[in-house]
């Protein structure tokens, strides 16, 4: 523990970071910015846990006895591998071979009650100044590549039950997007309907790393149910080095930079060209963890091709970019080396109303709330919208009165109505 409360003249030695460091100490530098966010409403639309340390708890929630016993049988193998999961641990290079300890393992001491995962999440939320965090899995982001659709469905069902029924009740600030086992449309429909009325569930998540055409007719019943629920569908991207194109990349950097964008570009293109927004006009869509630079790129590509080949997208009544401008995007990992380009991107996607702050904590390329507050081209209200008020509207979250901001003078109720958000207790 460092000791910043010590007398001014004292000298203290600070520890080196390792996998055992407490999250609050590791993020101590962020705390300085957090103190400036006291009257901001901050929603993290994409935070994570590492589910493998809790794998036995998760698979115990499998409804199917046979799959549950199959998964449990791995417990006695050397290293107790996460039974039935398709991750390739030896090629998880995100921690840069020990350079980023918290990506290696969060080994810090934390009470087992109510649950270590809950405590780790609370520590991150408190240090970053978050009102809510959408808590999502990590290795399961590649579960869509599992060769057995039935196993994806069994793991997805178990994780959803564990997260929503066992974990979130301990901490109301934790929220969730339900994992959709997209290789099994019937199983997806079951999960959508099961959680449609659960207020802790803010949406449904398709992990983008998969080879499934999102416009296939098998998904129309799923989309209809999602639209009826009023909750958004989300596409959370990821990487897959085994992809034939990605195999050309010899470094994790190269593959990672392209792969996250690649999958969402494909899904976005199929989504638009096949007129899914026209078929389900009330369904809200969020694109997660591909950064933002890809959005204006594919907007321009699709608009250009569509204007010449309109006959191939007969369901569209507008340009692709116009549909895309009505979708939602999460901010991380935000490309900010060139602020002029970033500002143009913000304009292209209507960031003021469509962008949702996301941390991706505890992953190696996480973004703090300061990634938004420090942008020089945003005004105060735009920062508040992106950090939390856009999410409050989209997810119907209650906003404390003192976090409405000062942009709308007059009665608090009128300010809330003007911003389209609900106040706590009203």
């Amino acid at each position, binding site marked *: 523990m*460092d000791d*910043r409360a010590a007398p001014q003249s004292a000298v203290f030695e600070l*520890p080196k970071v390792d996998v055992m460091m407490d999250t609050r100490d590791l993020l101590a530098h962020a705390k300085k910015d957090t103190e400036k966010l006291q009257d901001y409403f901050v929603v993290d639309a994409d935070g994570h846990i590492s589910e493998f340390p809790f794998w036995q708890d998760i698979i115990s929630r499998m409804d199917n006895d046979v799959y549950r016993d199959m998964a449990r049988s791995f417990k006695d193998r050397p290293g107790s591998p996460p039974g039935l999961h398709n991750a390739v641990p030896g090629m998880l290079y995100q921690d840069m071979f020990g350079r*980023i300890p918290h990506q290696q393992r969060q080994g810090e001491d934390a009470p087992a009650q109510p649950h270590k995962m809950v405590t780790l999440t609370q520590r991150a939320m408190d240090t970053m100044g978050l009102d809510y965090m959408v808590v999502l899995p990590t290795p399961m982001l590649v579960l869509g590549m599992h060769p057995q659709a039935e196993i994806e469905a069994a793991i997805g069902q178990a994780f959803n039950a564990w997260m929503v029924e066992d974990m979130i009740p301990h901490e109301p600030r934790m929220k969730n997007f339900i994992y959709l086992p997209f290789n099994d449309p019937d199983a997806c429909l079951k999960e959508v309907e099961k959680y449609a009325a659960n207020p802790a569930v803010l949406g449904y998540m398709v992990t983008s790393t998969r080879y499934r055409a999102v416009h296939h007719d098998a998904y129309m019943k799923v989309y209809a149910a999602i639209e009826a629920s009023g909750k958004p569908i989300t596409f959370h991207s990821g990487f897959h080095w085994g992809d034939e194109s990605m195999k050309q990349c010899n470094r994790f950097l190269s593959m990672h930079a392209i792969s996250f964008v690649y999958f969402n570009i494909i899904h976005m293109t199929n989504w638009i060209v096949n007129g899914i927004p026209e078929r389900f006009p009330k369904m809200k869509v969020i694109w997660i963890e591909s950064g933002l630079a890809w959005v204006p790129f594919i907007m321009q590509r699709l608009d250009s091709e569509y204007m010449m080949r309109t006959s191939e997208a007969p369901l569209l009544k507008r340009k692709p970019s116009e549909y895309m401008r009505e979708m939602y995007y999460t901010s991380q990992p935000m490309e900010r080396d060139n602020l002029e380009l970033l500002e143009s991107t913000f304009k292209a996607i209507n960031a003021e109303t469509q962008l949702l702050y996301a941390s991706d904590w505890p992953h190696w390329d996480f973004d703090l709330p300061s990634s938004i507050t420090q942008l020089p081209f945003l005004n105060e209200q735009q920062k508040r919208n992106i950090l939390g008020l856009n999410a409050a509207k989209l997810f119907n979250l209650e906003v404390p009165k003192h976090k409405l901001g000062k942009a709308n003078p007059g009665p608090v109720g009128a300010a809330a109505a003007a911003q389209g958000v609900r106040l706590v207790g009203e």
Partner: protein
Amino acid sequence: MPDIRVGKFDDIADGDHKIYATNGREVGVFRVGQNLHAWENHCPHAGGPICQGKIFGQVGEVLSPGKESRGLCYTGRKHIVCPWHGFEFDIETGKHPGDAHTRLRGIPVSVKDGDIYLTFNR
């Protein structure tokens, strides 16, 4: 502000570093041979605790005379790596290896009678 004594030279092994907090400032002191280099514990990327990270050898790539890759190697220089996101900086120059404009803020450091002193100009 007078120089502040933060520790003893002999307490830092060659190639190692220590991080001190004093007067609201945090500074990493790195020893290379008989020389010390001191850098503010603030990563220019996102404000992370850069000096509390680990020291890694700078990675290079060996090319044959015909410009064919012969694999990765250590160059012999040392980098401090930010534990938040992995930005790395030469411990002697404070510069990012790929962008000399992205660099750590140096703090004057000296040794008197075996003690390490930091000089804060503001």
